[in-house]
């Protein structure tokens, strides 16, 4: 019964979304206040209906209601509760429902927190947001309905893919969707501004928090996915340039560009047309990502189930929204005269360079991702574009970006002196060069990737610290630190975090040591200064799997560091094996062991890796996300909120 109500709520939400689109947009066009005022309540009802529908589906998963098709296909009574819940979005239909839930959540957030927006802009933002809801609700109802019942329910389900039964991956999709869908908000703001025909500093200030939030969520989502790949896939890779990964990485790059260019709009009223275009493209690439993952046009390691009908539907959505927005853009872009003037050397120029590098890097990833399709369609060549291409074509952009970043961040608005900014950074430069030289000397004979990456990391972190230090003035007044805007701290963390991540990637890629061998039980072996003993291998029973678990002890110079328990699990229902690596994490290195098959002589195949700086990759990611969050709480956004309260309070008086 509850399931039917959930289904019904979803259909109702579709009609509410149509009303949320049509009425406010018409109202804003013809200046009808009553119609525009319907926007906010419609967005809230839209959210409540979808939330109810989502809860109904979750209830079906939690209670293992095997009369529902997707519950049968993705759940099992023995599965732990966490994965019964995450099973809701561990499949195509359910994840699309999560998608529209988050979409409605953002629409409702704009309705609730958008009180300081001009009425017509707010109505248009919510209306455009509603139209995206209409498109995706139609997609769900017509091609991917999660509420399909089975006539003959089986006794038990087929279990969720064992790979997805992992805490890291349970929360990876919700964060990723919060990011993808968060960019729908900036898209709605961009289209609304085009309809209004006006973009000013205030618009920049309104749109930036949404971009920041989306970027923070994307950062966390991508980080979680990569961390999961690292410990779960059994060879310690962290990024594979897989089409699905690229699908999340392209919006991340565009969001990063957008949140920088929105600063220019906010502070200097320049780069308006470009910022609008970026906002459209950022969401466009979220849609392209959805299309790539769901349509199956590009085969990838972890693509969702797919069929052509869905692919065409998403392509249609993509075409309508991108086409519509870009046509609107071409009609109205000319009206957006840039105001602020600035010199060749200035923060504006630095941010333009940032935007060029990020946007072109995103296009390179895009072309590489779709090239196999293009080559097959036009030249009938079946070819692959894999990690070696992306490493070669993408890395230069981020290297240059990392080199210019601290210098750009030092430059003042309007007019700067390149020499002054560089002179200030001499200590950072010296430090970075010292690190490059020192590391290159120590490692002799290996690739330069390690020292250069580490040097860039040092350059970014110390540059960010110097950036903050330069705000203290000549007297080095430390009390000023407390009074700095949070946006400055956000910048320090985000840029420093990027440096840490770059150093981690370089360290892990350049200096990983690998060892493959057959080990007898009780045998001890050495890898890169570590000593490992294989004490025992046991078979154990988990809640819904059987595991072969090794017990190993890790020593360094005779001192016991930790015991490691790499596992090989087999999920009988899914008939699928997974590996669980045994990892001893440290600040400077991870020791990573994987247990393989038993050999004919009774020994076990064991793979050991020493992975330097591995944790820096995700540590840096967390720091970047934290920086974004810090910026989000900056005074200028809170002050706007406070001003709103004051106005509401004063309005109450004459009403009486």
């Amino acid at each position, binding site marked *: 019964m509850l399931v039917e109500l959930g289904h019904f709520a979803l259909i109702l939400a579709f009609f509410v979304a149509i009303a949320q689109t049509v009425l406010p947009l018409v109202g804003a066009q013809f200046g009808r206040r009553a119609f525009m005022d319907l926007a906010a309540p419609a967005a809230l009802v839209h959210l409540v209906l979808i939330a109810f529908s989502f809860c109904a589906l979750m209830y079906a998963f939690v209670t293992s209601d095997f009369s529902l098709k997707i519950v049968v*296909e*993705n759940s099992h009574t023995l599965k732990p509760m966490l994965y019964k819940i995450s099973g809701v979005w*561990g*499949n*195509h239909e359910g994840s699309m429902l999560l998608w529209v839930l988050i979409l409605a959540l953002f629409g409702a957030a704009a309705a609730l927190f958008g009180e300081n927006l001009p009425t017509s802009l707010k109505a248009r933002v919510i209306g455009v947001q509603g139209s995206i809801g209409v498109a995706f609700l139609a997609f769900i109802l017509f091609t991917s309905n999660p509420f399909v019942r089975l006539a003959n329910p089986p006794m038990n389900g087929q279990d969720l*893919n064992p*790979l*997805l039964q992992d805490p890291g991956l349970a929360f990876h999709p919700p964060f990723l969707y919060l990011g993808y869908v968060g960019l729908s908000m900036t898209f709605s703001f961009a289209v609304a501004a085009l309809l209004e025909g006006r973009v000013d500093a205030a618009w920049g200030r309104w749109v930036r928090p949404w971009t920041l939030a989306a970027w923070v969520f994307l950062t966390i989502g991508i980080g979680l996915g990569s961390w999961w790949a690292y410990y779960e*896939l059994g*060879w310690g*890779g962290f990024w594979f*340039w*897989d089409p699905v990964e690229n699908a999340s990485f392209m919006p991340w790059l565009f969001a990063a560009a957008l949140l920088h260019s929105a600063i220019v709009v906010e502070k200097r009223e*320049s780069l308006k047309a470009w910022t609008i275009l970026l906002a459209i493209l950022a969401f466009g690439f979220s849609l392209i990502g959805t299309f790539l993952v769901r349509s199956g046009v590009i085969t*990838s*390691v*972890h*693509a969702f*189930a797919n*069929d052509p009908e869905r692919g065409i539907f998403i392509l249609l959505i993509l075409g309508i929204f991108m086409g519509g927005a870009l046509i609107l853009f071409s009609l109205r872009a000319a009206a957006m005269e*840039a105001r*602020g*003037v*600035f*010199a*060749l050397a200035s923060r*504006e*120029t630095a941010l*333009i*360079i940032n935007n*060029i590098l990020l946007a*072109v890097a995103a*296009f390179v990833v895009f*072309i*590489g991702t779709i090239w196999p399709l293009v*080559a097959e369609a036009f*030249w009938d*060549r*079946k070819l*692959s*574009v*894999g*990690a*070696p*291409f992306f490493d*070669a*074509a993408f890395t230069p*952009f981020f290297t240059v970006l990392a080199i210019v970043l601290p210098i750009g961040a030092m430059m003042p608005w309007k*007019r700067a002196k390149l020499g002054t900014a560089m002179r200030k950074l001499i200590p950072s430069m010296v430090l970075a060069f010292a690190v490059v030289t020192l590391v290159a000397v120590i490692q002799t004979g290996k690739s330069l990737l390690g020292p250069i990456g580490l040097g860039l990391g040092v350059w970014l972190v110390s540059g960010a610290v110097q950036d903050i230090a330069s705000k203290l003035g000549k007297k080095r007044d430390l009390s000023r630190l407390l009074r700095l805007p949070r946006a400055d701290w956000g910048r320090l963390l985000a840029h420093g975090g990027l440096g840490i991540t770059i150093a981690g990637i370089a360290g892990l890629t350049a200096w990983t040591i690998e060892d*493959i061998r057959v080990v007898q039980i009780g045998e001890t072996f050495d890898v890169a200064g570590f000593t490992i003993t294989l004490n025992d291998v046991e078979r154990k029973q988990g809640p819904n799997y059987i595991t072969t678990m090794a017990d190993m002890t890790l020593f360094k110079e005779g001192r016991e560091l930790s015991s490691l328990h790499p596992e090989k699990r087999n999920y009988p229902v*899914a*008939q*699928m*094996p*997974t*590996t669980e690596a045994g990892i001893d994490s440290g600040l400077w290195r991870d020791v990573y062991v994987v247990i*393989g*098959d038993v*050999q004919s002589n009774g020994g076990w*195949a064991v793979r050991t890796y020493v992975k330097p700086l591995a944790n820096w990759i995700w540590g840096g990611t967390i720091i970047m996300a934290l920086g974004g969050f810090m910026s989000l709480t900056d005074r200028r956004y809170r002050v706007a909120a406070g001003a709103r309260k004051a106005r509401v309070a004063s309005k109450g008086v004459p009403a009486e």
Partner: protein
Amino acid sequence: MRSFFLILSLLFALPLYAVEPSEVLDDPVMESRAREISKELRCLVCRNENIDESHADLAKDLRLLVRERLVEGDSNVQVINYIVERYGEYVLLNPTLSGANKLLWVAGPVMLFLALGIGFAFVRRRQAETVIDELSQEEAARIAEMLKD
């Protein structure tokens, strides 16, 4: 409609073990060359995995083939050509520079230069207008004078 889960299990049939101890060559230099080559070759039945990471039987056959050719005395390029001849261009993770692929490789640099050109033109236009509020020498001198006090 196939289930997500079924597909995944097919795609991912997990790399429990990629390179097995028995495959490893005794000569460490040759083994490291084999690993290097393996990273460039796609496991044809997997999705976007190189043969070094994959556990699929085909990947294992290819790994052994790579090592066999190396032991026979082939250079890295010869080994790769040997495999491309048999399995087609699809096996290469690093696309060649032949024919239309040139477009793929030059796309990045070309877009970068275009974007830099447009960006530079834009900045020059903004800059042209800054001349107006440039301080004259007298004004600068006066400000310097005032700041001294």
